[in-house]
């Protein structure tokens, strides 16, 4: 039993201050067979926080498909891993850093990048690509502008410095994110399939080491903050902001990868949320071992830190690892080479306990397994929001649909959701490591795998509007879009990760959104053969009781056998034939058009036919592999008109002259309505018939829309006049839609 523990009485107030319920406290007493002391209570409180324990989400996450022939590591480790051939594995995961990014946008985003990179290289993988999925409030508010500037600069500041290219991402804007932006960062690394390192502590007598930044009083209660609903009280938590040190992490990255070249390491884990507590008990629990550490040996940045502070600190750029007995010296030498001082802070034991000492005296003693794995599981009540039916009702006759298509078109092209994101990705080094083979701004990031003929394509996608109107369909559409983007560059989707951003799960409507979304992800991933290998959940994304749009973000990884075949979304030459693959049937439900032009988030989002989607994606991959496509681009926000225009706007001067099928809803629906499972391709005249034949053989609808070329974007509707604007005008609207909100837009 913990002797020298703090004398503080554990009363109701203390328990509540730790975010624990009375029932949870009783559970702790049952596990310990006694009352915890303050340190032990703190340890339980961070491990059992929503952020670390997934107590509200786990029963739903369990339903996700996590297996497949390529899956080498599913959920449960620091990141997932897929077999990509040539004896190599792709290790990847996405993680959120939402709340910290509102409190201090630059540092919040920067440390988010640092955290996910650590998750990848702790697996032994060399990180080679980052992508970011961002959500902000409307750009016309100064607050949002400041948050955007800070977040983008923070991602750039960390990723550029450590030398991992940010090869893609997505960003969308909605009022609900104004006080609660979303910063989800995806990282992918490569490792020899037989060289994956796990976050396990094994072998009693093996040494427990600490390396990296010294421990300060950073973000104590940060783990609980990250999942505590926002209100003005969060102001007091501000001093807990953490500053990232990308240089330190670069040293850790190189040193760890060098250490892993030998077999001296047993296991490794970064100290992320819940710091030393989480890393030690999770490693112990995974390996079924005990961990005995002395906080007095932990390098400290500040004086008179208490065991409580040291165990709960969230200082960045720290790693915990286990070294085989007798191999300590060689491991220490490698870290010394990189000017890092690895410190032995304890050892692995056989008793399964997390034993914390302070100068030898035991100050906490908790069994690892229940601490890490037996957090309460909640099946929180859920039911559809009462206003759902109202919001899903969309009567076109209530809308003024008389606007001139060309005007609507230019407004949509300039809408931040659709407009060029160059202002953002220009700040990211997207080329370092010389693997990036898709042009910046392409639908998916593509990195070649040096030493092989292959490349990997990655896309992260989510659509909060769709999900707020139908979380099940919306989540399926997100999976489909991410996979489709990957397919459009020629990659076969092979796996996925997800980041689930929602409001307060204690509210049944929010929990309903979550449950429906996870169900949608599961069904779509099963149908498209993309197992989920990991991910992250971020709940309590609310500002003063106002939740964000439910925003599941899906990251899909695809593989291209011949890297040289990759195609982009941009038209390559004039006089190419423009074709639409996939069935028409656009709807304005939840569309960008409704949001931008009518200020509405209404109706029912497009319905996804998973078989049609699967057929379409296979067709596109096959056509790219055959070298038949000159460009391919999926239809998403803004519908067919925008998809066509996006092929033209950065093609330096190749317009198009096409005609779309008519729609009963009228020309605006035909042009700007959104449909699932559509891809616009351009092909050489000579290949058009081959494409049509291949589509017919696959059972996918295909139709010729027209030709590329000319200096205008001309899109008629079933032959009748529709959009007719100068390409230059469209390009101008599109390329300044985001940048115009910022100081440096001139340059």
């Amino acid at each position, binding site marked *: 039993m913990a002797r020298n523990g703090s004398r503080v009485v554990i009363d109701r107030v203390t328990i509540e201050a730790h975010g624990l319920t009375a029932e949870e406290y009783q559970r702790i007493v049952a596990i310990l067979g006694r009352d915890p002391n303050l340190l032990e209570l703190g340890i339980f409180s961070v491990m059992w926080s929503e952020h670390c324990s997934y107590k509200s989400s786990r029963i739903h996450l369990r339903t996700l498909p996590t297996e497949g022939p390529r899956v080498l590591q599913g959920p449960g480790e620091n990141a997932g891993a897929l077999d990509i051939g040539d004896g190599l594995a792709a290790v990847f995961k996405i993680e959120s850093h939402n709340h910290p990014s509102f409190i*201090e946008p630059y540092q919040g985003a920067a440390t988010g990048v640092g955290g996910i990179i650590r998750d990848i290289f702790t697996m032994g993988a060399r990180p080679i690509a980052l992508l970011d999925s961002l959500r902000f409030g409307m750009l016309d508010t100064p607050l949002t502008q400041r948050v955007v500037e800070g977040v983008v600069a923070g991602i750039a500041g960390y990723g550029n410095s450590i030398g991992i290219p940010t090869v893609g991402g997505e960003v969308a804007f909605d009022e609900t994110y104004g006080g609660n932006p979303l910063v989800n960062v995806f990282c992918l690394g490569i490792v020899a399939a037989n060289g994956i390192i796990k976050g396990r502590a094994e072998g009693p007598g093996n040494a427990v080491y600490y390396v990296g*930044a010294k421990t300060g*009083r950073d973000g104590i209660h940060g783990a609980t903050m990250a999942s505590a609903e926002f209100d003005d009280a969060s102001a007091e938590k501000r*001093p807990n902001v953490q*500053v990232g*040190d990308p240089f330190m992490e670069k040293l850790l990255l190189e040193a760890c990868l060098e250490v892993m070249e030998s077999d001296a390491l047993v296991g490794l884990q970064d100290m992320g949320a819940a710091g030393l507590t989480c890393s030690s008990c999770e490693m112990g629990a995974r390996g079924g071992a005990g961990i005995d550490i002395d906080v007095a040996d932990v390098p400290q940045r*500040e004086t008179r830190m208490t065991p409580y502070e040291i165990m709960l600190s969230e200082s960045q750029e720290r790693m915990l690892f286990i070294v085989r007995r007798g191999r300590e010296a060689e491991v220490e030498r490698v870290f010394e080479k990189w*000017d890092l001082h690895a410190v032995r802070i304890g050892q692995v034991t056989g008793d399964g306990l997390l034993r914390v000492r302070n100068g030898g005296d035991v100050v906490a003693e908790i069994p690892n397994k229940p601490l890490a794995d037996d957090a309460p599981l909640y099946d929180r009540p859920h039911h559809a929001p009462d206003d759902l039916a109202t919001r899903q009702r969309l009567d076109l006759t209530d809308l003024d649909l008389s606007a001139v298509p060309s005007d609507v078109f230019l407004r949509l092209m300039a809408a931040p959701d659709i407009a060029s994101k160059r202002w953002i990705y220009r700040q990211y080094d997207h080329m370092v490591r010389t693997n990036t083979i898709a042009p910046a701004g392409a639908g998916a990031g593509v990195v070649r795998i040096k030493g092989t003929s292959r490349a990997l394509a990655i896309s992260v996608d989510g659509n909060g509007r769709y999900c707020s109107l139908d979380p099940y369909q919306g989540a399926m559409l997100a999976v489909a879009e991410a996979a489709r983007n990957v397919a459009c560059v020629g990659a076969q989707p092979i796996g996925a990760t997800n980041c689930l951003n929602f409001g307060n799960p204690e509210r049944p409507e929010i929990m309903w959104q979550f449950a429906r979304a996870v169900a949608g992800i599961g069904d779509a991933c099963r149908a498209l053969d993309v197992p989920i290998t990991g991910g992250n959940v971020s709940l309590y994304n609310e500002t003063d009781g106002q939740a964000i749009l439910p925003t599941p973000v899906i990251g899909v990884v695809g593989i291209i056998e011949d890297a040289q075949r990759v195609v982009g979304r941009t038209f390559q030459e004039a006089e190419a034939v423009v074709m639409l693959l996939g069935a028409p049937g656009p709807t304005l439900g939840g569309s960008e058009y409704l949001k931008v032009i009518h200020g509405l988030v209404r109706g029912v989002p497009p319905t996804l036919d998973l078989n049609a989607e699967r057929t379409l994606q296979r067709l596109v991959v096959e056509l790219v592999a055959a070298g038949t496509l000159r460009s391919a681009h999926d239809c998403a926000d803004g519908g067919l008109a925008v998809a066509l225009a996006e092929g033209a706007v950065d093609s330096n001067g190749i317009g198009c002259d096409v005609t779309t099928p008519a729609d009963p809803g009228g020309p605006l629906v035909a042009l700007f309505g959104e449909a699932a499972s559509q891809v616009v391709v351009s092909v050489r005249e000579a290949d058009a018939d081959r494409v049509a034949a291949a589509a017919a053989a696959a059972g996918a609808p295909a139709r010729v829309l027209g030709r590329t070329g000319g200096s205008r974007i001309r899109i008629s509707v079933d032959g009748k006049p529709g959009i007719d604007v100068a390409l230059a005008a469209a390009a101008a609207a599109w390329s300044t839609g985001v940048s115009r909100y910022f100081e440096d837009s001139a340059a």
Partner: protein
Amino acid sequence: MKAKVFVTLKPSILDPQGKTITGALHSLGYDDVRDVRQGKYFELDVAAETTDQAAALATEVADKLLANPVIESYRVEVSGD
């Protein structure tokens, strides 16, 4: 009038730059420099009647733009000249 604003990271906040500079100085043999903390320094040229006015303006500006209250604290100095 000239106003000077000194912005420094709050004491409890990690200062990677200062830490790295300290390390560099030690490897150059300057062990007598025990620690370095890096901050920002602004020289403002302000139109003001009195030094108090100048100080007030500089403070407002530091608060609003020059310093990030979340992680930094600042000090203002006004020299009559």
